[in-house]
């Protein structure tokens, strides 16, 4: 085993640390405290990061990107998220879908869309699958209800498809230039048979942005409704084949899209935990209580030790999974890791809140911000359905075989 990083990995990590320290961190709380759904967003941060390569980090060299591996991507996310989790996610969301373009699209589509993506510092990517009545059902379609899951309708019209319906809570929704859209091309069968994946550019006639959501955490990061009113999408924008199920068209969990999604959240969580640990230690070494520094109280020592223990365990898990992805190994570890990160990031940030107490929480809005950011894990991506998804990925035959033998 070798736990050391390559020179290239360390270079990217250092670039991300510098960017987080000098550009993100000074703006983090300021952006968080701005009212509204869209207003906390700031294009200048995206553009500066894009110039360094953070927007296009996952694009292979043959398509003009830096061609980094999963370990590098994990290291960069950890560093950026320490500055601000939501800003980190605004960058890494693009990696997720550029992975998918590379893995699921044909060469013509790759050329068309990756070229645009590489050349425009404001070109952001997203995927619209969630709808008001279709959340968990998209991830775990029920056997007994073929109507369950996304309902956005796509109907063929010559060389085009006409899309009608709406998507909700869509990441990068209000700032995205290109979206993968999961749509029903056959409403009479379940989404694994009647679903198709499309690429939809923001300039598509009949497509518009709806409500921009005002969230408690990840306030910089954008989530919005996408509205389709007779939106006309060329057949050339179909990903894979029609009617294969949009999840399958995207390669399920075997491609960079879903596969990266688990790593993305868990690595980001490490960054928040690093931030919380540093804040807790700084506060505890600065503030006195009952005649001695907080850090000299056993209560505080136990809490800070636990925060660091959980963080380091999560870091190890994340880097292991990143390495497995780089080796092409596929297992339940990815989804187990993101489940674990959901628990860890909330516990560590809550413990940081306890170290700060009422006085610290009152005087430093970042304490509360980290918890609000951590809350996102249990609601936008790492909720109960993902815990059930983790079980579905376990090899459920192994235990039985052992009993038999």
């Amino acid at each position, binding site marked *: 085993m070798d736990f050391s990083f390559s020179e290239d990995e360390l270079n990217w990590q250092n670039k991300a640390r510098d960017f987080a320290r000098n550009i993100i961190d000074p703006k983090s709380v300021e952006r968080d405290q701005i*009212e509204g759904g869209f207003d906390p967003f700031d294009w200048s941060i995206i553009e500066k990061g894009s110039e360094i390569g953070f927007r296009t980090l996952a694009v292979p060299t043959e398509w003009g990107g830096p061609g980094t591996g999963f370990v590098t991507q994990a290291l960069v996310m950890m560093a950026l998220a320490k500055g601000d989790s939501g800003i980190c996610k605004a960058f890494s969301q693009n990696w997720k879908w550029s992975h998918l373009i590379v893995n699921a699209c044909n060469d013509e589509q790759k050329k068309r869309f990756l070229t645009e993506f590489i050349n425009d510092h404001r070109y952001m990517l997203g995927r619209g699958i969630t709808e008001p009545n279709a959340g968990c*059902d998209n991830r775990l379609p029920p056997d007994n209800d073929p109507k*369950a899951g996304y309902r956005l309708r796509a109907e063929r019209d010559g060389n085009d498809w006409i899309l009608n319906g709406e998507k909700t809570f869509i990441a990068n929704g209000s700032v995205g230039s290109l979206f993968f859209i999961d749509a029903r091309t056959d409403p009479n069968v379940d989404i694994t048979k009647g679903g198709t994946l499309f690429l939809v550019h923001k300039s598509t006639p009949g497509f518009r942005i709806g409500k921009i959501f005002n969230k408690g955490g990840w306030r910089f990061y954008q989530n919005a409704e996408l509205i389709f009113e007779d939106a006309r999408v060329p057949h050339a924008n179909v990903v894979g084949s029609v009617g294969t199920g949009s999840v399958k068209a995207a390669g399920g969990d075997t491609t960079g899209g879903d596969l990266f999604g688990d790593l993305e959240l868990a690595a980001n969580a490490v960054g928040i935990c690093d931030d919380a640990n540093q804040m807790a230690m700084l506060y505890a070494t600065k503030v006195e209580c009952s005649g001695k520094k907080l850090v000299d109280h056993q209560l505080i020592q136990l809490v800070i030790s636990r925060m660091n223990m959980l963080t380091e365990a999560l870091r190890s898990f994340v880097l292991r999974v990143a390495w497995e992805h780089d080796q092409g190994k596929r297992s339940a570890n990815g989804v187990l890791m993101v489940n674990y990160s959901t628990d860890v990031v909330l516990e560590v940030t809550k413990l940081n809140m306890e170290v700060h107490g009422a006085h610290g929480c*009152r005087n430093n809005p970042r304490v*509360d911000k980290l918890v*609000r950011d951590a809350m996102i894990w249990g609601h936008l991506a790492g909720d*109960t359905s993902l815990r059930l998804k983790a079980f579905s990925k376990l090899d459920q035959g192994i235990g039985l075989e052992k009993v038999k033998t």
Partner: protein
Amino acid sequence: MFNMSLTSEQLEFQAMLCDFVTNEIKSESIKPSRLEPFDKPLMKDLLNQTSELGLRSISLSEEAGGVGADLMTSCIILEELSVGDVDIAVTLSQTALLAGLLFDNWMTKKQHDLYISDFLSDATFHLAYVGHDPDALAGWNYHTTIKEEHIGSPFATKLDENLIINGAVNFVTNAPIASLFIVPVSFEGKMTSLLIPKDIAGLKIYPAIKTTGKEQNRWHHGTMSRVEFTNCYVPIDDCLKNSDNGRDFSTRNIIQRAAINLGVGRVAFETAIEYTKIRRQGGADIIAHQAIGKMIADMAIKLEHARTMIWKAAWVLDNPDAVIDNNLSNLPLHIIASSFTAEVITDVTHLAAECFGAMAVMRDMPLQKYVEDAFIFANSDTNNLSTKLRITEAIVQSDR
């Protein structure tokens, strides 16, 4: 005889408030237009309407013109109010608790007669305690000989028949709306409490703490601000009868706050149940799924335990003989109830939020507010990392 039945009066109060909260308060407090902005000013019209139901004077004796409710009844009422709006509940709990202590116990007859009719006739007459829980940080002194001083209290010097007060206290609940202040001051090495009306010279009440802008501070409930004394002359006649009333106030305040926190958990729980009955995923209403069913059961267990503990602790404070007779353990039950409630209500609000999926983190939906409200109670002046050690101190009967 052990009896958990509520009295007919308690049940009536509960039912009346439940209707009022549902029909008048809750619908206003969870409007998206109120939930979404950071700034949530106190809903003063609703506060006044609630006061007119007699809730400002629930703890005041019937002889003095109040309801004469005991602490347990106050807790039942505050839980109901908090289901509607935590800020209204906190505001009224301060005034109501102080009214009972002040008019029935702390004031001289002359002071009582001077203020009682104004208090009873004016629904906007509120009270504020300009001091701290003297034991708030006592857990940090666990098994040490360090004695907490009255750090941060204003101090007094004497001139003729006046005390001259100087100093300031931050984060005083109800200060922006209070007509009368109870101010513990350090005087000649001891604590003395004074009665100070809002319009006295030398008293500066700062505007309510901002919730937006660079000096924002959202880590509080109700309305609060800084209170500052600069050569403030107070007649010696305005000294209250008891010199050190901090513990009288804080033990009851801790229990009342726990009851309000319980209301936060309950409204999160009830909101989650309503939603899980109508949200359909996985081929069924989500309440039919075991994963959701377990969450709801866990929430119910935590809420029932917290309520039982709060009621017991409240009853004991009004019936100290039960401890003297060894019917109940001689432990700081108010700390046990408050600590337990703070822990479980953060769990309950998180579980309730989880039932809502993505909508739980949207600012126009109420769940994110309930979670935040529970966090504020868990990390407040009355709850901190060291609070539990106050219980251990009592167990080992450590003598500082």
